[in-house]
């Protein structure tokens, strides 16, 4: 039987990936889509193992060990992670994917150099270009994703000391990045000229790793979703280049499809923030020089808020990252239940970039059994805000900051939820400190605003019990 017959298996896997990705985009079919993707992956792995040369003397030790170790770690991490840690987890997995592609490329180049099995002519050009590009994209994805993960966490703990992830990037750093990229392209050309020289390959790996760090370093934490999404796109491209190395269409199809899909998602997020991707990537913003907060505001207590909320007819809840951090979605839901029992209409206003990932709030609220129909997108909820009696802002800041309308400062032009149009604005927040964009929020100081200073979970619990006592 012709070995090419095996490629039909890869075709099946490709089809499953395409269907899976398509189904992932619709709420009802998404679980099926994920299943299709996993099934496609299984088919690809089985087909790959089935057509291997059983005559080699290794007894598949490495393969079985690799699959077992990786599978166990991956499954453990996926089951253990909490919903708040989801963005970091996606960033980490993404980095691993990029690193895997880069390592496959490295494996091939070192094997060929060590065994003196260097290709010639067209094959040399194709193989070495693909290896170089796969290494470039793969290592950038790895170091970039790791830094993005640390930025999402806010810092790292090394030997018991907490280090805040820095954000640093003067204007000239962009030229350094450009220079590194040009050097890598130059090195890539040199590897083709001297295919037996592994120093060039090592230089590409080192420079790409540095490039990944420099790429993410100047970007503020608020923009990390965009960065993770872009890196996700890159890891797909890295896989596609790996496909060129081993001459396998399923890698090329799946990889470039994910690359394109990631780019679309990145674009959606940038649009939601009314910013250009170029600005996000090359103009540092957020977290660098924050305004000093000098004004003060007297906090309210939950009893007062409960009294205000008594007998209202419409309430809009606007969650933000703070809700994710304090895990108070269940308390928020409870609060909504009490209001609804008293005949109040409750809706949730979801800002497209609330939280640290698109759809972050939706996932959390779904966990707390909030019906899907009550989650209203920004544009739709804004037309209703004027008739809203109370807007409850839970751990959100920049997404309700009226400064965004002024056309000045880092937030300029970002669409916001018009919480300030509601009759009363209740804000649950730990302090008056600025959000990721580093801009003070006028909304906090308005007369109709009631601040509930404290941890989201604690404040919402107290609010719920005060409501019950009324």
């Amino acid at each position: 039987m012709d070995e090419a017959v095996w490629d039909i298996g890869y075709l099946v896997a490709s089809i499953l990936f395409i269907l899976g990705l398509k189904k992932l985009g619709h709420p009802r079919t998404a679980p099926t889509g994920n299943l299709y993707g996993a099934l496609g992956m299984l088919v690809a792995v089985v087909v790959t193992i089935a057509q291997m040369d059983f005559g080699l003397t290794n007894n598949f030790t490495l393969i079985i060990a690799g699959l077992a170790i990786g599978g166990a770690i991956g499954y453990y991490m996926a089951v253990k992670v909490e919903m708040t840690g989801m963005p970091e987890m996606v960033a980490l997995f993404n980095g691993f994917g990029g690193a895997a592609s880069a390592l496959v490329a490295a494996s091939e180049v070192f094997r060929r150099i060590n065994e003196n099995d260097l290709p010639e002519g067209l094959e040399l050009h194709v193989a070495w270009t693909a290896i170089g590009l796969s290494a470039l994209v793969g290592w950038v994805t790895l170091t970039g994703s790791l830094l993005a993960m640390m930025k999402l966490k806010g810092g790292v703990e090394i030997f018991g000391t907490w280090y805040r992830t820095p954000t640093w990037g003067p204007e000239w750093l962009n030229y350094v990045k450009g220079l590194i990229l040009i050097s890598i392209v130059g090195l890539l050309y040199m590897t083709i000229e001297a295919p037996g020289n592994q120093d060039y390959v090592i230089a590409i790996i080192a420079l790409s790793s540095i490039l990944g760090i420099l790429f993410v370093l100047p970007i503020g934490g608020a923009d990390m979703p965009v960065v993770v999404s872009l890196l996700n796109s890159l890891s797909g491209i890295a896989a596609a280049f790996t496909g060129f190395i081993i001459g396998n269409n399923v890698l090329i199809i799946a990889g470039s499809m994910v690359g394109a899909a990631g780019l679309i998602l990145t674009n959606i997020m940038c649009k939601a923030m009314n910013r250009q991707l170029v600005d996000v990537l090359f103009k540092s913003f957020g977290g660098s020089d924050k305004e000093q907060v000098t004004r003060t505001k007297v906090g309210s207590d939950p009893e007062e808020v409960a009294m205000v909320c008594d007998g209202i007819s419409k309430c809009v809840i606007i969650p933000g990252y703070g809700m994710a951090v304090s895990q108070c979605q269940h308390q928020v839901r409870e609060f909504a239940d009490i209001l609804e029992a008293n005949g109040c209409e409750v809706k949730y206003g979801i800002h497209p970039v609330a939280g640290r990932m698109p759809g972050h709030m939706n996932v959390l609220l779904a966990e707390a059994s909030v019906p899907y129909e009550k989650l209203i997108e920004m544009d739709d909820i804004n037309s209703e805000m004027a008739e809203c009696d109370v807007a409850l802002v839970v751990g959100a800041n920049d997404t309700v900051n009226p400064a965004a309308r002024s056309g000045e400062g880092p937030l300029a032009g970002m669409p916001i939820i018009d919480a300030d149009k509601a009759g009363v604005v209740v804000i649950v927040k730990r302090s008056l400190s600025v959000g990721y964009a580093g801009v003070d929020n006028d909304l906090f100081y308005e007369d109709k605003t009631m601040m509930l200073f404290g941890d989201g979970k604690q404040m919402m619990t107290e609010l719920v019990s005060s409501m019950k006592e009324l």
Partner: protein
Amino acid sequence: MELITLIGAITVFILAIFLGFELITKVPPTLHTPLMSGANAISGITIVGALIFSNTDYNNGDPGFAAWLAFFALILATINVVGGFAVTNRMLNMIAGKRGGK
């Protein structure tokens, strides 16, 4: 590699990019995170390359440096694949399970 194979591969590459653009143009925000996670798991397809290069002939019981690199790639790719699909499934269950009173 023959020129025709290369051009075939580039054709597939370009067409798949267009396909990716068309596949997901309108996605409700609820699904953005699961979609990113699911797509990320699919990009773990590089596992195929890791598998192929992990399967080398031992030289006196030593798989060699290249095979060790591939082995490490295999572990990372498997984490990406298994973890990616599992975590996506968890998120989707959370969303889907709470809808329609299921």
